[in-house]
């Protein structure tokens, strides 16, 4: 299928904002979808995604059923096939303003348009441009200055219907001194062959503290491309945890733009793959100013014929003296047909810095397995225990207990069928 044919299926979507028209022009002329010849997409083939005839199903509210996180008391915003549903959504706590991107009006709209698309580039990024061109809706969340939100805010995206294609566009502004956490949960129902292209711009103002949990669970037969752009202002803290539960082809681009001094940035993730899954995590920590710290920890377990990809880049600009940037990526291969490609990069132009990256690829420790077996555990049981222990280092960093338990359960179940 040619690019023009692929794009044609979206052209009936009305453009809401001028930026959409611009992006459409760019993507129709010249801007091509990446191939494995592009360094940035070297290990991930997106041709199957961009040569499929997708559908646009009308939102079916019955599809939003059992996506609760056990015991979780969260204020939830619900989006079905990308469209906001106010009936199913909760009222937000004080100090948190929520608008549907498509229906924001008045001052909120002006403010939104000031930020929308200001932090991500469509140039050279065809999937960003695709998102900008054809998004129909999304969440615009504004957390006011000095607001401390105790319970996490949950953004639930449900994709349903076969071959549903959704471009979801979101914007979060966290005001000065505010403290808040978000769970961005992507779920799916009866949606084999679906494709979601999600883009989030998250701006963390001075001295604010934001946590963002990205949970991808749209179904075994779906594709997901996610771009999360974080912008940090002076002395802010931001943690992003990415957990990919299901998805046949998942690509996450997580970019941190650290624009002022005294910031703390945390990038954590787990990718446990089985069958023929392909999960790709690209991260970019862009240190532009001095005295900032970034920590990164990504862990992956690959079974069956699956593939894991990790590419973490730390960029330290000339002015960013006294930067501490640490990155670690650890992988376990459970099968000879599984593979992992990893590329931890450092690009450093300042001298007074401490930067490091470490990367390991290996298997479960035979001695530990033997120890557990000698204590009466079956081999399968023993290896599951070790996999859980391996994951726990990341799981411990999840500060929402209900979410942590939920992901622990996922890890326990994930390799039930796998003969490790």
């Amino acid at each position, binding site marked *: 299928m040619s690019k023009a044919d692929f794009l044609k299926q979206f052209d009936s979507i009305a453009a809401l904002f001028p930026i959409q028209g611009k992006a459409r022009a760019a993507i129709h002329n010249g801007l091509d979808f990446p191939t494995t010849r592009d*360094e940035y997409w070297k290990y991930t083939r997106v041709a199957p995604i961009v040569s499929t005839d997708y559908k646009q199903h009308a939102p079916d509210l019955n599809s939003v059923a059992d996506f609760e996180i056990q015991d979780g008391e969260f204020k939830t915003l619900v989006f079905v096939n990308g469209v906001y549903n106010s009936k199913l959504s909760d009222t937000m706590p004080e100090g948190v303003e929520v608008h549907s991107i498509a229906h924001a009006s008045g001052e909120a709209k002006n403010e939104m348009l000031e930020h929308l698309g200001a932090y991500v580039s469509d140039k050279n990024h065809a999937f960003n441009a695709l998102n900008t061109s054809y998004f129909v809706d999304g969440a615009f969340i504004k957390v006011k200055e000095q607001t401390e939100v105790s319970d996490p805010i949950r953004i639930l995206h449900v994709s349903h219907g076969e071959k549903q294609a959704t471009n979801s566009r979101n914007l979060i502004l966290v005001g000065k001194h505010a403290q808040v956490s978000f769970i961005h949960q992507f779920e799916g129902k009866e949606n084999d062959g679906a494709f979601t292209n999600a883009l989030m711009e998250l701006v963390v103002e001075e001295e604010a503290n934001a946590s963002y949990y990205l949970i991808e669970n749209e179904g075994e037969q779906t594709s997901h491309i996610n771009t999360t752009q974080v912008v940090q202002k002076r002395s802010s803290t931001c943690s992003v945890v990415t957990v990919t539960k299901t998805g046949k082809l998942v690509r996450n681009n997580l970019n941190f733009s650290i624009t002022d001094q005294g910031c703390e940035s945390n990038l954590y993730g787990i990718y446990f793959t089985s069958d023929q899954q392909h999960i790709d995590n690209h991260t970019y920590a862009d240190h532009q100013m001095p005295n900032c710290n970034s920590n990164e920890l990504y862990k992956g377990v690959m079974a069956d014929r699956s593939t894991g990809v990790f590419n973490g880049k730390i960029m330290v600009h000339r002015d960013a003296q006294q930067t501490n940037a640490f990155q670690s990526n650890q992988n376990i291969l459970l099968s000879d047909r599984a593979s992992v*490609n990893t*590329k931890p990069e*450092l690009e*450093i132009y300042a*001298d007074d*810095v401490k930067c490091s*990256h470490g990367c390991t690829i*290996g*298997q479960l420790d035979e001695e530990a397995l033997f120890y557990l077996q000698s204590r009466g555990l079956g081999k399968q049981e023993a290896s599951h225990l070790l996999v859980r222990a391996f994951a726990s280092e990341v799981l411990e960093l999840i500060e929402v207990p209900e979410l942590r338990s939920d992901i622990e359960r996922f890890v326990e179940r994930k390799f039930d069928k796998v003969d490790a």
Partner: protein
Amino acid sequence: MPYTEAELAEELKGKKYEFGFVSNFESDKAPKGINEDIIRLISSKKNEPEWLLEYRLNAFKQWKSMQEPEWAHVDYPPVDFQDIYYYSAPKTKKRLNSLDELDPELKSMYDKLGISTEEQKRLAGVAVDVVIDSVSVETSFKDKLAELGIIFSSFSEAVQEHPELVRKYLGSVIPSNDNFYAALNAAVFTDGSFCYIPEGVRCPMELSTYFRINEAQTGQFERTLVVAEKGSYVSYLEGCTAPMRDENQLHAAVVELIAMDDAEIKYSTVQNWYPGDEDGKGGIYNFVTKRGLCEGRNSKISWTQVETGSAITWKYPSCVLKGDNSVGEFYSVAVTNNYQQADTGTKMVHIGRNTRSTIISKGISAGRSNNSYRGLVKVLPKAANARNFSQCDSLLLGSSCGAHTFPYIEAQNSTSKIEHEATTSKIGEDQIFYCLQRGIDEEKAVSLIVNGYAKEVLNKLPMEFAIEAQKLLSISLEGSVG
């Protein structure tokens, strides 16, 4: 050979690039530019067999359809490949049997290079092959080596005397269409060294080649081929220098190593091509393809390099670990100062079972230079129990330089273990302070710390080279403190 710091300090006084002299001996040059006629000319001058000419022409054809690689983290104006002399040879009238017959100009150049052959003979340690402007002018100790069945000669001599060996192995590790510069080299290479160690022979001395670019506007394209048969061992050294010139000169070499069952090749390089002046003017473009093939079981190839020269270095000495239990090693120190740019590293491709590789890379950047490590560790599905350890450290001296790491790790086997580690930092203020309060001034302290930092790699060099390398490190970093 004790070498004290006081001596080093004495030597360093006012020391710049010391090999920047030009020797005025007559040379035989082909016209500028590259085309089929030039290739035919080179081939006929060398009196080459038909198959080699074919090989060259074929490579030239492939080269014409290839693009210059742009992925490296280096920046330079495009090279005009038609503005280069592809053939320049010092005029020697006849073949020489002893040093006394040598052109006095040529001989004094050797002396300046510090490889006076007499001295080498006295030390009785190293057999040297000297390559000037891509033509091999002299090989010492040849007879002694021949007694053991070792062939160590210039490439063109080997083509004449052992065409069957050259034909068998030439291009077997690096095919002529491997990359842009390898193809260019395959088309126009003029000379180089050939080394063949027969089965079961342990080469009793270090073999060594000195490369020197002398003529202006010439490119140097030499070709080295080392074959170690079953159970043999050889240690091979390579040194490089060039005169100081305002223009950029091209050096595109190809080195192929082949190790059979139980064989071991140790290949050490001290690269000190002219790096350009303080404003980044002039200097050598060093675009080199080096690859070793561990063909046999239990074979081992070890690369050690000290890279201090060249305006631009683009070089990835690699190991293809094909034989079961084979071992690949890469030890590197790369120093960049002023406007130098280096993009260097290695590739370790694990094909056989129980293959092991080690990568130790130490980058040191000063001035306005950029120093990148780029490496690939690839474990194929059949490489059970493959093991890799990589460590890439970067040291930054000064706030205008850059240090970068681009490691690619691709694993397709669940019994393999791969570890990669990289750090970037500057010299600790506490370390400097410690030296200062012990009465060691800052410049010396930096030199001391840098040498300590690079020790892990320098230790792998044969002794004569290790001393030279230490000196080079200090010279390269001259003036980068404060």
